């Protein structure tokens, strides 16, 4: 019982600080490096023109990258159009439809668990595996069954776009349902019971109890969807590799941006990193000016649990 507790020479406060630093220093460092430094670097890069010099790249100030990026952006009407269609469809189907289905699942209606698992299954497989299977279905299987010599992905940009859009909706739906239904499961049953005693209908229950309960999650998903409108590549690289011919493939900015980044170098390529950095800044300016006020409005005027 008289066991002596050995203590180091450090004071309790110091020990706590060491522990705290050991725990948080790496994530903070990572945050500063990957989230702050890289963004800072790409902003600087957008205003630079580089050449190779002794010991490293030598940069000089230029607006040329923005000129290039603006030309690309303004000539990309078809890419913007496709991205907006994807965004709108996802809002309606994966978010809107996901909310309804999540309510169905949260209420444990007929075979809801089965549907939930089935819908979530695609998330468990790697993207490449799914795309290969889907491609196989739209090419080999379709060709064999229909006798048409051309697969559905190879009939032009419009046909391919519909196929790719369907794939993205299918794959994305289960994930949203999983998150929304989990959030909905946190709704207090006594509140629901009390409302029922008041004669609430299932639709009213959904609109006035469940939606307010998961509204912050909904806002996050909604905003994230808009934020990703120019970076969502729709897995086009897995479908069509680096093809950027817009007459033939349903190219969107996310895919264009990705392919060009893989091909770019600091200097000596037709499209350079500084060009792409400027394009990224243009995307950011446009989206930030939409997202920040929209988020504020949604949180201020949206339904509340209380």
């Amino acid at each position, binding site marked *: 019982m008289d066991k002596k507790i050995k203590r180091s020479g450090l004071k309790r406060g110091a020990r706590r600080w060491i522990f705290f630093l050991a725990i948080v220093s790496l994530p903070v460092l990572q945050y500063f490096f990957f989230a702050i430094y890289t963004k800072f670097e790409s902003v600087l890069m957008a205003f630079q023109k580089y050449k190779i010099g*002794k010991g490293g790249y030598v940069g000089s100030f230029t607006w040329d990258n923005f000129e290039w990026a603006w030309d690309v952006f303004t000539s990309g009407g078809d890419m913007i159009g496709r991205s907006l269609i994807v965004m709108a469809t996802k809002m309606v189907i994966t978010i809107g439809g996901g909310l309804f289905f999540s309510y169905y699942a949260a209420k444990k209606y007929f075979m809801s668990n089965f549907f939930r698992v089935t819908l979530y299954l695609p998330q468990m497989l790697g993207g490449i595996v799914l795309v290969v299977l889907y491609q196989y279905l739209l090419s080999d299987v379709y060709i064999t069954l229909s006798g048409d010599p051309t697969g559905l992905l190879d009939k032009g940009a419009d046909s391919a776009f519909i196929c790719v859009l369907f794939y993205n909706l299918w794959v994305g739906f289960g994930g949203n349902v999983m998150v929304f239904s989990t959030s909905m499961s946190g709704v207090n049953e006594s509140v629901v019971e009390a409302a029922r005693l008041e004669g609430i209908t299932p639709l009213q229950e959904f609109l006035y109890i469940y939606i307010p309960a998961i509204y912050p999650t909904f806002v996050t998903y909604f905003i994230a969807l808009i934020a990703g409108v120019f970076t969502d590549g729709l897995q086009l690289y897995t479908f069509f590799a680096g093809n950027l011919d817009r007459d033939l493939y349903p190219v969107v900015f996310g895919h264009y941006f990705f392919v060009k980044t893989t091909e770019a170098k600091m200097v000596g390529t037709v499209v350079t990193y500084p060009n792409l950095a400027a394009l990224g800044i243009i995307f950011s300016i446009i989206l930030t000016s939409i997202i920040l006020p929209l988020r504020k409005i949604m949180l201020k005027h949206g339904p509340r649990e209380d």
Partner: protein
Amino acid sequence: MKKFVASILAATCVLGAIGCGPVGADMGNNDADSDKTEITVKNYNGGVGRKWLDNAVERFTEAYANESFAEGKTGIDVKVLDGDLTTIALGSEAYQVYITSGAYMSVSELAQLGILYDMTGIVTDTTRKGDTLENLIYDGAKPAFMHDGKYYGLPHYANSNGVSFDRDLFDEAGLYFADEEETDVVAYTGKDIKITRNFVSSEDAKKTVGMDGVKDTEDDGMPCSLEEFILLMDYIKNEKSDMSISPIVVSGKYHGYIQLYLQGLTFSLAGSEQMNNYSNCTGEIDIITGYTEEPLFPGIDYIKKPIVETVTLTEEDKNGYLTTQLAAKYYAMATVEIIHKEGYFAKEAYNTSVDHYSTQKCMIYAGAAEYDRVAMLMEGSYWYNEAKKSGVLNSYVTISGDREERGVAWMSLPTAVYSKDVKEGEISPIFTGPGAQVVINANIKGNTEYEKACAAFVSFLYSDEELAAFTVETGCTRNLKYSLTDEEIGKMPKFYQSLWNSRKEDGSNTLINYPTTATGLKVASHIELNLNSAMWEKFNLYHYVRGTKNTKQMFEDMKYTASKWNEVLDS
């Protein structure tokens, strides 16, 4: 317990942070306590793998077991790690030698950054057995490894792009052009292209001598002109229909492989001199300035014969934009339109789930399994190594009933559009980019132990014996003058034997397209014809499939105007 968990947690985080630390140059693998010198090599594992290197390292360490590179140390260890050169921060890396794909940056650019070790001493070493490396490196390859008159790298493996063919099938079906004097022939007038040629009707029939004009060489019986190339496919499709052979295949998933074919054919049609002028934007090239109403080939009226002019490019005139109108490129593209429209492509070319491994199976399996039987394949010469690595070659042994090897070969591509323009003795150039490279990290400068050890290692890898061993092991060549004995050639697969035999030892038919002029270097990314280069963004097989564009339209899309060119030059 809480304290224990907290300590473990904290220790884990700290150790994690340590684990994320950079590989410093001073994290010496050259341990002062070690009794051997140790160098580390970063080796690009794609392309030719690392078995050749492991074997070479074994021979090297054995040969230098009693050599001392530092006081108190005897012998050397070479540690090989897989990876590629992907950063300019070499100074902070602990690798001394890099065997790279060359995809990251050219040697001259890396040298300009000051991160490469000056290898001039190794390259000009007169004590080397045989000749100096400087005298052995192909002249065309040298600029790619030099900066300011000094050498900073050595050529690693070379790839060729174009067409491979199933020689066993060609032998079986008699798909060779017959010698003029031969009587044992099948006279064939094309159903699609209206020209007539004789094909051999038996294996003993005499074939044409091919472009080199020499009998019993790789190009015997091969098409010398584009019209013959098309006639060959016409013959396979229409005359040999009972054999169910598709003339040619390309991956439906990766249509980029057509670019490899276009690149090889463009270079072959334009020839070495014109392509050097092209990449340097100086000298004469043939360009297209308009189109006639005449068909390009008799019987094929959907592609018009272009109006071709020879122009002289100079840096002063800033007329390099004319390179984008290179006539040879148009002809090469036109063949793809013909191949598609006349139905010469195997169905795999139109199936987006068919990748390059599947097309390799088409070639190797030769109709066995579920793959179409094809006569030719659009690919880079490295495909055979890929097929080996992916197990396609091993599967063939089973499928064919223990037959050892399918006789596939590299095809010499036509050098002229029309047979009347074929110059006898004009050999189809084997195109290869400067590509893969062997370089040394500049951070070893001043460390005599590393300097001596790296020089010894690289010199060893480029000794005559090791150059030969490299080719025998990998089937790939290096852009240096070296030879193989008949026994060594016999050890290689037939495919690589054909590639080796197509190559002239002195490099006279190896075309290394690397610009040396200021304009050429500046515009390289705009006009180069490599896989996935900007120029080919305007070309796509599916334009033919869907009828959205024809060859002329795609060719015109590739053109640069004088003002756009000036923008590039001024950028």
